[in-house]
């Protein structure tokens, strides 16, 4: 049995507190116990119903309070003796006094005693007392009710605020508010971290645009939010202290005054840097892929051109071989024919010597002396022509040697130049004279036919450049060879227009040409570069000649290192040549 201090007058205890059951019981007990004391009752009970309309009661004897009892149904009116009995309080006389307060639940004070019944005076006094208490109890009940509602509302508000605070603070995205002038008013921890700041107050009070990489973008954002009242997934780049700018998506809405003026902007900003970074990688791959495709295309073109040149070389070698056989027997026959003619001339001279009239008779008719002289001249000229044909065929065979065999072999660079000049003679002979300053250089390891192709490209370019000047005097092409350490160097210079300095770094690029449309593919020097630098590990440079024209300097190693070193050397040579070219 709980002991409550029920003695003393009714005071502030008579305040219901719906959040505090004990306090309620105290109030109920105090009221009923006080009434019992006033009216000389020995037993008392305060009966009320809970929210489920179950009857509950606080009861006791004197100032002692019994436990709270409950019954399944509300007490039936009039059976108050039974009620007290059900609470364990046996009384012969019972007085029930309903408490009429404006509450949702019926309430009553039940008093009991054994010694005498409650008379009318007592009953009226009790009713009067209840009537006096009722307004006070009603006010206190209502106040308690209001207080409870307020307390509950405040609790809910506190809970809600705590939840919002947690949401605001614990969000992984930046959440902020800004005032109508776009000055940041609040920002969460994620926002502080996102901007790389240490303190909230480094941000609060600052214009939002201060944190935007391009302030005009924020202007754009404000334009949109002013017009629509909200902005969804607006991409913006924020500045982060001590780090790269960050790509973000912002979703925000504006709180506006009735006149439409923005009072507050509330926004959530999501860091999308990782996504943008992945997109960047994707773009990078696309660009690299496109670049690789372009290179492949160039390489394919070069290969086709290489193949064409190789085919032409093979064709030239084939033709040279085919010409060589009939040429051999023509030369042989021509030689025999010359011998026969000499024999015939000797026979004629012998015949004339033995019969002088014969000379007068036949010489007069046929002019044989002159005829013999002319035949001799024809034979000599034909012999010279045949020698030249043989020389051309021989040089064609030398020039095109690699067309059939592209492996490295011993190669005499001076012989290569000679044979190339024979092939290029037709291009050069009308526009320029060639001066050879060939040094005593050793044979090198090279694919002779390909190196000859380089000489041919450069010589033909020189001749065409000189021809393009449309000048009166003939041009001059100087070819020198020399040995520098372990390299044989060949310089081909001309007195043509030269290569402008700003174009020198590009002339070995595939498809770069200064010639008119249809006059050049722009692949000749690119292929030359490929042959000399990449294939032979040499160097190819262009410069200005002393005569003001172009000077091409070709360096070829005498010996080639083993395969492993070769690759490294090739790369190095590539870099060197690129830098100079």
């Amino acid at each position: 049995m709980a002991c409550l201090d029920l003695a003393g007058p009714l005071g502030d205890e008579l305040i219901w507190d719906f959040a505090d059951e004990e306090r309620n019981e105290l109030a109920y007990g105090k009221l009923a116990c006080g009434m019992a004391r006033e009216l000389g009752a020995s037993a008392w009970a305060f009966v009320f119903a809970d929210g489920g309309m179950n009857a509950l009661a606080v009861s006791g004897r004197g100032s002692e309070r019994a436990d709270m009892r409950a019954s399944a149904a509300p007490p039936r009116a009039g059976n108050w003796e039974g009620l007290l009995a059900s609470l364990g309080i046996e009384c012969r006389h019972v007085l029930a006094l309903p408490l009429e307060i404006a509450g949702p639940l019926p309430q009553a004070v039940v008093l009991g005693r054994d010694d005498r019944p409650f008379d009318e005076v007592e009953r009226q006094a009790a009713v009067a007392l209840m009537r006096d208490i009722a307004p006070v109890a009603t006010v206190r009940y209502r106040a308690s009710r209001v207080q409870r509602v307020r307390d509950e509302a405040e609790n809910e508000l506190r809970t809600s605020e705590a939840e919002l605070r947690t949401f605001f603070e614990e969000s992984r995205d930046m959440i902020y508010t800004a005032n109508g002038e776009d000055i940041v008013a609040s920002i969460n921890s994620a926002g502080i971290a996102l901007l790389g700041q240490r303190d909230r107050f480094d941000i609060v009070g600052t214009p939002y645009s201060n944190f935007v990489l391009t302030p005009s973008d924020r202007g754009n954002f404000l334009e949109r939010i002013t017009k629509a009242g909200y902005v969804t997934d607006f991409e913006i780049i924020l500045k982060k202290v001590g780090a790269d700018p960050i790509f973000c998506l912002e979703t925000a809405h504006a709180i506006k005054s009735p006149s439409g003026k923005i009072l507050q902007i509330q926004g959530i900003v999501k860091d999308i840097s990782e996504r943008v970074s992945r997109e960047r990688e994707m773009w990078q791959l696309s660009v690299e892929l496109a670049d690789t495709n372009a290179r492949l295309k160039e390489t394919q073109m070069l290969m086709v051109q290489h193949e064409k040149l190789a085919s032409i070389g093979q064709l030239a070698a084939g033709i040279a071989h085919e010409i060589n056989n009939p040429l051999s027997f023509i030369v042989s026959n021509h030689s025999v024919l010359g011998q026969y003619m000499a024999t015939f001339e000797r026979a004629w001279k012998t015949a004339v010597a033995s019969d002088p009239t014969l000379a007068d008779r036949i010489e007069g008719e046929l002019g044989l002396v002159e005829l013999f002289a002319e035949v001799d001249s024809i034979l000599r000229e034909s012999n010279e022509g045949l020698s030249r044909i043989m020389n051309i065929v021989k040089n064609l065979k030398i020039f095109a040697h690699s067309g059939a065999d592209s492996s490295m072999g011993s190669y005499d660079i001076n012989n290569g130049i000679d044979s190339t000049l024979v092939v290029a003679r037709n291009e050069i002979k009308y526009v320029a004279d060639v001066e050879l300053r060939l040094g005593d250089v050793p044979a090198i390891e090279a694919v002779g036919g390909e190196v000859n192709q380089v000489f041919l490209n450069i010589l033909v370019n020189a001749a065409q450049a000189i021809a393009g000047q449309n000048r009166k005097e003939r041009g001059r092409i100087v070819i020198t060879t020399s040995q520098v350490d372990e390299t044989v160097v060949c310089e081909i210079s001309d007195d043509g227009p030269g290569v402008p300095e700003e174009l020198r770094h590009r002339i070995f690029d595939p498809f770069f040409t200064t010639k008119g449309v249809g006059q050049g593919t722009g692949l000749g020097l690119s292929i030359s570069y490929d042959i000399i630098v990449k294939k032979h590990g040499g160097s190819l440079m262009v410069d200005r000649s002393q005569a003001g024209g172009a000077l091409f300097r070709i360096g070829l190693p005498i010996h080639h290192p083993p395969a492993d070193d070769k690759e490294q050397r090739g790369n190095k040579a590539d870099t060197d040549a690129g830098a100079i070219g």
Partner: protein
Amino acid sequence: MPIVSLSTRALVEDFNKRSSALELNLTGSADPPALVVGATGLLDTDSSPSFYVIVESMLAEAQAAGGLILDVEHIRYISSAGVGVCMTLFVETTKQDIPYFLYKVPACVRSVIGVLGYSSYFSYLDAYKAE
């Protein structure tokens, strides 16, 4: 003006009717020879996809004209998606050997291109001779 097909012009007109953020116009350049696609407004996440579709459909005409100039002088805002479109056009024009220029790049566009690290990919043009 370089030869632009009627269907392309119709596409541009339709684009301009539908798009409130971005407006396009087509002109030509004599030097360098190119089709000039002028864009005004916002090249953002919303407008970028349709912008790419329409410019991509003009690549054949740009090739015939000798090149493509993207006039971005009047772009007021560009997102990473917008720069992505410029990059995709770079890739496509490279594949098709079409000279491609960005004309009069404003600061707001230049900074986004710079942050993304794409500045070196583009050829920039400050003037061209209108046809």
